């Protein structure tokens, strides 16, 4: 790695003793000796194993649940169903007043995606839990499922989630989060060329080496210690407190080093039911996703559909950009309404464009709920934006790198979401890229600066 200190040198002092020093990581000795403590590196006498019975259907009504045979299975300590959960209906972002509550900790009347948690089985061994789980009988009436954004938004589509009453999240701005800046139609009218293109992506898994999980121990003082690999301790504690109708002081979350997160450990699908299990049995409980659950049950990065329509001038200026983005939230909100909003703010990318219109939709389908992942609301958008940008440059016969210099945002430029640009450095990144990649650009671009509109 090369630290290119010549850029912005006048904006920095580098006279530090600790900052900027390549010190070894404090946790490295533990890593290389295998002594770093992860949440699961603990054993407790009498530990129970939790195995989740999950929906085999994309969408189905639950007519009945019969756990009688499972309860009698040797080694079973307890079976937990929806009726055992004090506040079964929840949504994670209710903590910051983003509702409505739309998801059950354990399914009640319906399942809305293949893999949804229905019944929790607690047994002395993982094997006994598997065996008992196989004896849980759930009577399903299969319902028509909506599996794509396109199908979800059809007027006669089955409703995925009754708590929303429609297959998209309703913002104060309506069916999508909107950003309006300038007059996009006027921009298109003045453009030399119009280019409208669609982009899409499939769901992506965080795939951390350590799967999501927790171990909960009931303490003598009535509290519950939850050893967890959540990325957000208080998010988990506060949501568990609501779900379990248990005051926060009864809960103690303990993390440690997490074996990779990438945004995959910010949902609250594990700890509440495990704490409940510890409460109901009075015993320590381990609930750790199998690798297959991590791959198919834990929230992925959402699949997205993004349509970009641009107006561009022959001289390279993008004069209008309209983006319509659809984020496939799956069956429940989790963090997706926020992600769609973050996406709306991110468009139109690091370029200064006078006329912008953004519509960002959070769409519900009968799929594994999606949620945050590294680059939440941005990664797929950047793919779409930057491929589109390449297409625009080629459309007008301009070098793709030079095209970006022409449109790059600079200090003081107003962004589409009406924040002035500060601390821009896109131009300088491109200048350095031009040098290290041997991709020469015209001298005038090499003289440009993010700090001034001159040049």
């Amino acid at each position: 790695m090369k630290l290119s200190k010549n850029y912005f040198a006048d904006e920095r002092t580098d006279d530090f003793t600790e900052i900027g020093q390549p010190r070894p990581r404090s946790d490295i000795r533990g890593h290389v000796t295998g002594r770093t403590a992860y949440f699961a590196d603990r054993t407790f006498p009498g530990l129970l194993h939790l195995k989740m019975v999950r929906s085999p259907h994309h969408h189905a009504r639950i007519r009945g649940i019969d756990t009688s045979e499972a309860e009698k299975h040797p080694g079973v300590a307890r079976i937990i169903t929806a009726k055992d959960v004090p506040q079964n209906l929840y949504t994670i972002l209710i903590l910051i007043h983003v509702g409505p509550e739309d998801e059950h900790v354990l399914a009640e009347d319906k399942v809305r995606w293949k893999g949804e948690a229905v019944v929790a089985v607690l047994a002395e061994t993982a094997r006994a839990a598997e065996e008992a789980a196989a004896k849980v009988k759930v009577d399903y009436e299969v319902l028509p499922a909506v599996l794509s954004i396109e199908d979800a938004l059809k007027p006669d589509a089955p409703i995925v989630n009754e708590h929303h009453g429609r297959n998209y999240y309703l913002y104060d701005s309506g069916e999508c989060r909107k950003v309006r800046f300038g007059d996009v139609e006027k921009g298109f009218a003045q453009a030399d060329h119009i280019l409208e293109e669609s982009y899409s992506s499939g769901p992506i898994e965080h795939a951390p080496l350590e799967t999501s999980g927790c171990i909960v121990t009931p303490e003598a003082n009535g509290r519950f210690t939850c050893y967890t690999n959540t990325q957000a301790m208080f998010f988990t504690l506060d949501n568990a407190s609501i779900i379990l109708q248990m005051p926060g002081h009864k809960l103690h979350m303990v993390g440690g080093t997490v074996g990779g997160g990438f945004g995959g450990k910010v949902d609250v699908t594990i700890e509440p039911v495990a704490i409940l299990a510890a409460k109901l049995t009075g015993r320590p409980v381990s609930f750790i996703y199998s690798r297959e659950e991590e791959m198919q049950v834990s929230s992925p990065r959402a699949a997205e559909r993004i349509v970009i329509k641009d107006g561009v001038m022959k001289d390279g200026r993008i004069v209008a950009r309209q983006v319509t983005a659809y984020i496939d939230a799956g069956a429940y909100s989790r963090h997706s309404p926020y992600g769609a909003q973050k996406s709306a703010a991110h468009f139109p990318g690091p370029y200064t464009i006078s006329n912008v219109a953004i519509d960002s939709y959070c769409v519900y389908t009968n799929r594994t709920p999606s949620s945050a992942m590294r680059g939440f609301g941005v990664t797929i958008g950047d793919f779409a934006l930057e491929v589109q940008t390449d297409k625009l440059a080629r459309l007008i016969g301009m070098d793709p790198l030079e095209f970006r210099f022409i449109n790059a945002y600079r200090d003081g430029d107003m962004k589409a979401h009406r924040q002035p640009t500060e601390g821009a450095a896109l131009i300088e990144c491109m200048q350095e890229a031009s040098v290290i990649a041997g991709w020469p650009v015209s001298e005038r671009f090499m003289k440009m600066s993010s700090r001034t509109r001159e040049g």
Partner: protein
Amino acid sequence: MAVKRGRGVAAVNYPTGMNLGGDPTQALVHSTPTGSFMVTLSSVDLGQGLKQIMAQICAETIGVPTESVTVDTADTDTGPHCMGTFASRGTHRAGNAVIQAAREARQVMLEVAAEELEVNASDLDTDGSGNIHVKGAPSRSISIFDTALAAHFKHGRSISGRGMFLVPRSYPETETGAMKPSTCYAHACTVAEVEVDEETGEVVVLSVKNVFEIGRALNPKMVEQQLIGGSWMGISHALYETTEPYYPDREHGARDYNEYLMPGPGDLAETEIAVLERPSGDGPFGAKGPGEMCANPQIPAVANAIFDAVGVRVDTLPITPERVLRALRQRDAGATA
């Protein structure tokens, strides 16, 4: 074999934090009786190295060596609130909270030292290796060890501080979407070079040259780690990854690491990284959050390089050999039509 080469570029920015819901993190700092420092947080270290970075930030602020700072984190009984480790916010939000707490602790420490040395606290400075001295008179000094002992046993002072960083919640304006969704922005530009096999649709990423602007490299080796790993993940996203290869069909989803495709150690692109530092106004020592951004520019850069090589666009992720081959077939059909 019909193998074609191409290169592509992409440039991106990335917001630090998530203040659409309010974005708070708190920190506490205190000294032990012998002048070691403890930072208490509830933020989570996911492997990005938050503990080490917070120790360096605290040490720099108080003026002590990093080794004398211990970071106690991820415990809700001891650590004050943190929104969580996500949205590229850990270093920025927790770092700011630690600076504020450490400044307060430093002030108390200097006040105690001032009493011991019978000078004004404002006349004192630290030497970074465990001593406090009168500015311009290094011989008039007291060790932090002795200062802490004096604070605890003689002056009844707690060398401690509280830190809080809160970006107030931003509510988007209904009609225009005017909002302040984050604070500072990090930047990147990537040039990717690929080889495309026109008979099989297979893509090999030969090299990526990444430039990242991250505000301040608080620990350059740790920055490098994250940027290399992120660059790999970006390429992985571009060409390999999905839990549902035939989306929206839900069949054939990956269940293990054999089926969930990611580049192996034999698939690595030659990776070059340059880092620029334009300190942000509100970041700890100017730092921004590069953790997420570093995996983004490779994706479009690779897509654009594929077009440069063989003249086809695959606008759906991941860009699998199958999608490339189908596009090539379409290209060839169009050429003969």
